[in-house]
C-alpha cells in the first residue's frame, strides 16, 4: 500500500514519455474535463462570488460583502424552512434506511421469485421522478385516490395526504421510501458480502438468529449504512423535485424545504445573490454533517480487513 502511494517526481522531472502519456490521458478525458469545468467548477465558483453580491440576474452584481449571509441568519422564514428540511433528515432518512434495509434483508432470503421481487423493488428508483410524482398525486388524492378509497371501503376516515400540513411531509417520506431501490441494492450487496463462515462460527458459539443479526450482520453492513446515511442526508438537504411537483412547497409551506426556498429566491424573486449564499451555507452544513459522521464512524463502522 505504501509502495503504491510512493511520491511521484514533480512534473518538470518527468520523462518526455511520461509527459506524452499525461497529455494523451488528458486528451482522452477532455470531454469530461471540459464539462466539469464549464458546468460544475465555473458555476460553483461564480455562485461563491455571487453570494457576496446583490445580484438579480438582470443587472450587474453589486458587492455587499457578508450582507446575504447576515440576511440568511435574520430571515424569518429560515426557521420554518430548516425545520422542514431537518424533519426530512431526522425522520425521513432513518425511515428510508430502515425500509431499504428490511427490504434488502427480506430479498436476501432464499425464496421463489427472488429475482423478480428484487427487480420489482428496484424498478421504482429508475422511474422518472415526474412520472412517479404524477402517479402518487393520484394515489394519494383525498377523494378519489386508491389509498383513500381503500380506507373508505374499510369504513376508515380518509387521510388528506398532500393537502394537510401535518400529513404532507410524512407523505413525501413514504414516496421516498418507495423510490429507495438504489439504497436497497447497496444493502443487498453488503448483506451478500457477509461471509457465511462468520454465521457458522457464531452458531458454534451458541448464537441464535437474533444474536447473529445484531452481532454479525449489522457490524458487517455498517460501511453500507454509513454510505447510505451520508448520501441520504446529502439528498434530503437538496429535496426539491417531489416537493415542487406534488405540493409546490405547500400546503401552508409545509414542504417548503431548503432547496425549494432557494429556488424561489433565485428564480421567482430574482435574488440570485441571496440564493447563492444559501447554496454555500447548505454546502457548509452538509460538509459539517459529513465530517461529523466520518469522525464518529470510527466508533461504529467496522471495515473488514482494515486492521489486517
Amino acid at each position, binding site marked *: 500500500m505504501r509502495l503504491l502511494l510512493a511520491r511521484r517526481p514533480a512534473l518538470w522531472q518527468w520523462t518526455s514519455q511520461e509527459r506524452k502519456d499525461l497529455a494523451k490521458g488528458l486528451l482522452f478525458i477532455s470531454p469530461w474535463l471540459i464539462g466539469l469545468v464549464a458546468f460544475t467548477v465555473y458555476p460553483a465558483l461564480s455562485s461563491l462570488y455571487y453570494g457576496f453580491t*446583490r445580484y438579480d440576474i*438582470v443587472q450587474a452584481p453589486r458587492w455587499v460583502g457578508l450582507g446575504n449571509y447576515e440576511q440568511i441568519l435574520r430571515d424569518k422564514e429560515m426557521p420554518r424552512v430548516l425545520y422542514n428540511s431537518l424533519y426530512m433528515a431526522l425522520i425521513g432518512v432513518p425511515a428510508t434506511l430502515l425500509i431499504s434495509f428490511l427490504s434488502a434483508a427480506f430479498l436476501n432470503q432464499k425464496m421463489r421469485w427472488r429475482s423478480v421481487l428484487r427487480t420489482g423493488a428496484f424498478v421504482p428508483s429508475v422511474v422518472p421522478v415526474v412520472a412517479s410524482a404524477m402517479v402518487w398525486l393520484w394515489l394519494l388524492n383525498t377523494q378519489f385516490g386508491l389509498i383513500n378509497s381503500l380506507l*373508505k371501503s374499510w369504513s376508515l376516515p*380518509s387521510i388528506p395526504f398532500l*393537502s*394537510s400540513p401535518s400529513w404532507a411531509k410524512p407523505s413525501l417520506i413514504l414516496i421516498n421510501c418507495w423510490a429507495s431501490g438504489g439504497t436497497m441494492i447497496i444493502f443487498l450487496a453488503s448483506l451478500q458480502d457477509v461471509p457465511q463462515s462468520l454465521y457458522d462460527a457464531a452458531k458454534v458459539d451458541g448464537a441464535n438468529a437474533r444474536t447473529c443479526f445484531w452481532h454479525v450482520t449489522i457490524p458487517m453492513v455498517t460501511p453500507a449504512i454509513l454510505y447510505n446515511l451520508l448520501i441520504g442526508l446529502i439528498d434530503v438537504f437538496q429535496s426539491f423535485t417531489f416537493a415542487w411537483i406534488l405540493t409546490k412547497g405547500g400546503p401552508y*409551506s409545509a414542504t417548503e424545504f431548503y432547496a425549494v426556498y432557494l429556488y424561489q429566491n433565485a*428564480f421567482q*424573486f430574482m435574488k440570485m445573490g441571496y440564493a447563492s449564499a444559501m447554496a454555500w451555507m447548505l454546502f457548509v452544513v452538509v460538509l459539517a454533517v459529513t465530517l461529523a459522521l466520518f469522525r464518529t464512524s470510527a466508533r461504529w463502522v467496522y471495515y473488514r480487513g482494515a486492521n489486517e
Partner: protein
Amino acid sequence: MQQQRVSRRRFLRWSLLGAAATSMAACKPQVVEKEVVKEVTKEVEKMVTQVVEVTPVPTKVEQVTIDFWWGWTPEVHVNTLNGVCRRFEELNPDIKVQTAQHEWGPKLLTAIAAGTPPDLSEGGWPGELAARGALLELEPYIANSKTISKESYNQASWDVGTVNGKIYGIPALEQFVYEGQIGSVELYEKEGLKLPDDLPVTLGEAMAQIKTYTRRNDAGDITLLWGDIDRYSLYWYELVVGKHAYNAGAGAYDFSDPLWAEVLRWTGNLYQMLGPDKVDAFHSSFSQWTSVAANSFASGTQAWQSPSGYWEVGETAKTAPGKQFCWYWTPVWENRRGVKCVQTGGHTVFIPKAAKHPDQAWRLIEFLVSPEALKMIFNGSGFLTATRAFLDDPGQVVDFYKYPGLRFWVDSLLQADEVWSEAPGPIPGFAADKWGKAVDSVVLGQATPEQALAELQRLVDEEVANVTKQ
C-alpha cells in the same frame, strides 16, 4: 515487409504546408483566357440588360426572423397563437416569426441574463423585469405608431404595463376583466335561492352562505363546498377593501389601513370554520380552475366563488355543458356595500432591451392588438383584450350569445363604478408570495392579522429598498 512510418511531427509539418498551399491557391486569381472572358461577359451583360428591360425582376425581400415567446402550453392556445403569427407573416413577408413557450418559468429570465432574449415576449407582470432595466421603454414606439396610441386602452389597462410612469408592456393576447363572482344556478335554486339577487354582496354575506350550505360526509370531508375565495390573490383583496396595496406615487406598499387586518381576520375565520386541510383536500379532487375537466363547478360540488373572471364563461361552456352559471360583481367589505367594481388586467407583451429586432417585434405587437388578431384569438382560445376599439364595438370580435354570461363581463367595464388595475409595482411576485404567507399564518393561527401584516410590511419595504438601491 518493411513498413514505412511517417513520424507525427513530419505528418503535421506536411499537413500544415499542404493547408497553406491550398489557401494560397484559393486566394490566387484564376488563370483563364482574359480575352475570352471579356467577350462572354459582354454578351451576358447584353442579354441581361434586354431581359431586365422587358421583365421587371421582383426585388428580393430580405426576411428577418424574430423570436416570440409566451407562457401558455395547452395545445388550444399554442395552435391559436401560432395561427395568428402565420397570418402576420402573410401580411408581412419580410418577417418570419419563430415561436416558443417559456411557461412563465425561469426560461425568459435566463435568456435575458444570457443576453439572448426573444424579440418579443408575453408575460403576466412586466414590472419585475422593467424595474431592473431589462425591458425596452415603448413610449417612442407608441408615439410613432399609427395603430397603437395612448387612446388605444383605458388607463387601468395601461397601468398593467407601466412601471414608474413609463410604459414597458402593451396589453395583448389576454387582458380583459375579472374579479367578480360566479354562482351555480342549479345549486342556488336547489336551496331556494335566486340568481343574481341572492349572490352575496359583502364578505359577511358570503361567509353566512358558506357556513349554512356547505355539506360534509360522516368523515368530515367536504362534499359540497358552497363557496371559496382565492386567498392568495392580493389584487382581489384590493377591490374588497378599496385600497391599492402598492402606491405607485409613493413607490411603496402600504398595509397600514385597519381594513387589511379585518379582511385577513375574515379569511382566517372562514378557513378555520371550513378546516384549512379539508378545503385543500377538496380542491385536490375538484379544481377551482374551470378550465380543468371535472372542476368543482362542473361536478356540481361548488356553488360560488370569488374572484372570478371572464374566461370562465367559455371554460364552463366546455367543461360543464348544460349547466348554468351566473356572473356578477365581486362582494366587497361592508363599508363598500353596493360598489360595483371590476379589475382589468392579465397579460402584456414586451420587448427585452437586448432584442435583436425590436422594430419588427413592434410590428407584431401592432398586429396582435388589431381587430383581426383579436377575433382569431377569441375564436381559438376564448381570450379577449380590452382595446378601446374593441370596447367601442365589441360585436366585431365577440359573439355575445356564443357563451352565456359573456355580456356581463363585456358590459362590466363600461358599467362599473370602479375599474381597477393590477398596478404591479417593482416586486409583484415577491409581494404576492409574502401576502400568501401572511394569509397562511393567520389561517393556521400562527399570527394575528396585525402581526402578519407588520411582518409583510417589513418584508416588502426591505425588498423594494433592495430593488431601488440596485
